[in-house]
């Protein structure tokens, strides 16, 4: 085996094999460009880029916003004006993310507006920017597409409702929630071929599923069919599909096993969740595990982080189809040391267990 590039190393694992060591990845927005980042990339860190392969347009919704200063925070109230009414959301830009202080849904009167907004969505392929960016970035990055959130998850952690509103409405106005769900299902079906025909080799379908909110039956009935439907389209084009499962997964592990998903992205092992890496491998033997290194460990001493990395991999009888990743923010004063320690752990594991890895020629 010739020397692997960071991207090639990830691709090998993503297709169920393994190179000379377990690849290490980070989302592009979680690592600043600096000397340490360059050193980590020189050692094999692969940046995960997630540009969209399609644009979303609502031709009959007028969007406008106004700045709001509230409780010492600069926020933005965005209005969505439709022929059937207007809704608004209050959000705050914080670092690389945006906090939703108020969802669009305020009262049951808003259902008709949300339904209109969903139905009004028009999707257009946006392949060129993805392909150009991928070509320009070269071998230091891997590019991933996304379908957006699962239909029901869109109503839990999207901008339409917030989790609390969803919980109440799920119990008291389920018919209305399901009308929105049905509309999103139809819209997602328009997205599947767009993503499958894009230059992306793989795509995530949703995630951030919290089993304590939806329960295993709802997951089985309202999530799994959509993974499988999208997977069928992706597989026809020789593409891979995964999902971002970063919360407790034990309650839905059997259902996840039954899906046609190829990889489980952001799986976060114990101590941050209720499953160890060994249990995950046992539960999903045919799926690639693209991990999120347990966030709590970033705050531990460097040698402990390195030991944790090795002991995580020691839970596995083979490391094929394993990718170590970072999908959560790390404290500014910790990321350089923590990421270096993780990479040390990955290198050392490959050194201690050469029989588990492909040998460079």
């Amino acid at each position: 085996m010739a020397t692997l590039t960071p991207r090639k190393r990830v691709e090998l694992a993503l297709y169920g094999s393994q190179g000379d060591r377990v690849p290490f990845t980070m989302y592009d927005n979680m690592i600043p460009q600096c000397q340490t980042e360059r050193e980590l990339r020189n050692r094999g860190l692969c940046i995960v880029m997630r540009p969209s392969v399609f644009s979303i347009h609502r031709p009959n919704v007028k969007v406008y916003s106004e700045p709001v200063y509230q409780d010492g925070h600069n926020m933005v109230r965005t209005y969505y004006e439709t022929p059937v009414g207007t809704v608004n959301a209050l959000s705050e830009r914080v670092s690389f993310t945006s906090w939703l202080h108020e969802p669009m849904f305020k009262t049951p009167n808003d259902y008709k507006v949300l339904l209109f907004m969903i139905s009004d969505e028009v999707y257009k392929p946006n392949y060129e920017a993805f392909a150009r960016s991928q070509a320009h970035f070269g071998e230091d990055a891997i590019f991933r597409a996304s379908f957006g959130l699962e239909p029901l998850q869109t109503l839990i952690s999207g901008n339409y409702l917030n989790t609390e509103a969803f919980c109440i409405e799920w119990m008291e106005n389920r018919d209305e929630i399901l009308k929105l769900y049905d509309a999103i299902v139809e819209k997602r079906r328009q997205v599947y071929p767009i993503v499958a025909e894009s230059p992306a080799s793989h795509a995530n379908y949703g995630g951030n599923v919290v089993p304590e909110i939806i329960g295993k039956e709802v997951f089985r009935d309202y999530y799994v069919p959509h993974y499988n439907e999208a997977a069928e389209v992706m597989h026809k084009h020789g593409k891979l599909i995964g999902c971002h499962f970063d919360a407790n997964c034990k309650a839905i592990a059997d259902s996840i096993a039954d899906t046609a998903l190829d990889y489980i992205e952001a799986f976060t092992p114990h101590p941050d969740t209720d499953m160890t890496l060994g249990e995950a491998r046992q539960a999903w033997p045919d799926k690639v595990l693209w991990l999120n290194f347990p966030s709590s460990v970033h705050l531990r001493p460097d040698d402990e982080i390195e030991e944790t990395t090795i002991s995580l991999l020691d839970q596995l009888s083979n490391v094929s189809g394993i990718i170590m990743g970072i999908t959560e923010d790390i404290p500014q004063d910790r990321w350089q040391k923590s990421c270096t320690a993780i990479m040390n752990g990955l290198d050392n594991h490959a050194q201690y267990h050469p029989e588990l890895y492909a040998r460079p020629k």
Partner: protein
Amino acid sequence: MATLKAIATAVISGKAVEVSRLVEECLAAGIKPTDIINNGLVSGMETIAERFKNNDIYIPEVFVAARAMTAGLSIVKPLISASDLQPVGKVVIGTVKGDLHDIGKKLVAMMLEGAGFAVIDLGVDISPERFVSAIKEHQPHLLGMSSLLTTTMPNMAQTIKLIVESGLRDQVKIIIGGAPVTEAYSNEIGADGYAADAGSAVDLAKALLN
């Protein structure tokens, strides 16, 4: 005639309007407000907590049950003198500075309230100074802090440090929780305990007060 059992059943079903109606009927029938709370409203929430712990129900069911309980409490609480209203304990709870995650903390607050605690929920993005002033103002037995981000976890340590510096540490037990939070971190920063979920938080709170 309305019974305490019917109130508990209505709480379990999350029927706020029915709980209010039953509570009014029980009061009219001469049932003591403290009995309505302990043997009706709290009893219903105890069942909910148990079912949630066993994964028989999920957060939406807990939310509507808690709302139904609150509807009942809002009727009976004003009728009870301070001396008769003896909560299991008083808890100040909040999500630490820089973190706007609300659901987990709210769930813990609801479960504690359902177990008979008086809960003061400060909300989210709470600074160490605000936690300290809340301890001074409310004199709680327990302080609960939540963090869902590794980037905001250090604010738990900062808060405990300020509580110590303010001379309040001996007055209050401190419990922490949130996805990336662990027992080891709890020990490291000098909290009194860590709970992995809302049900465990109630058990931990009761254990610490005993």
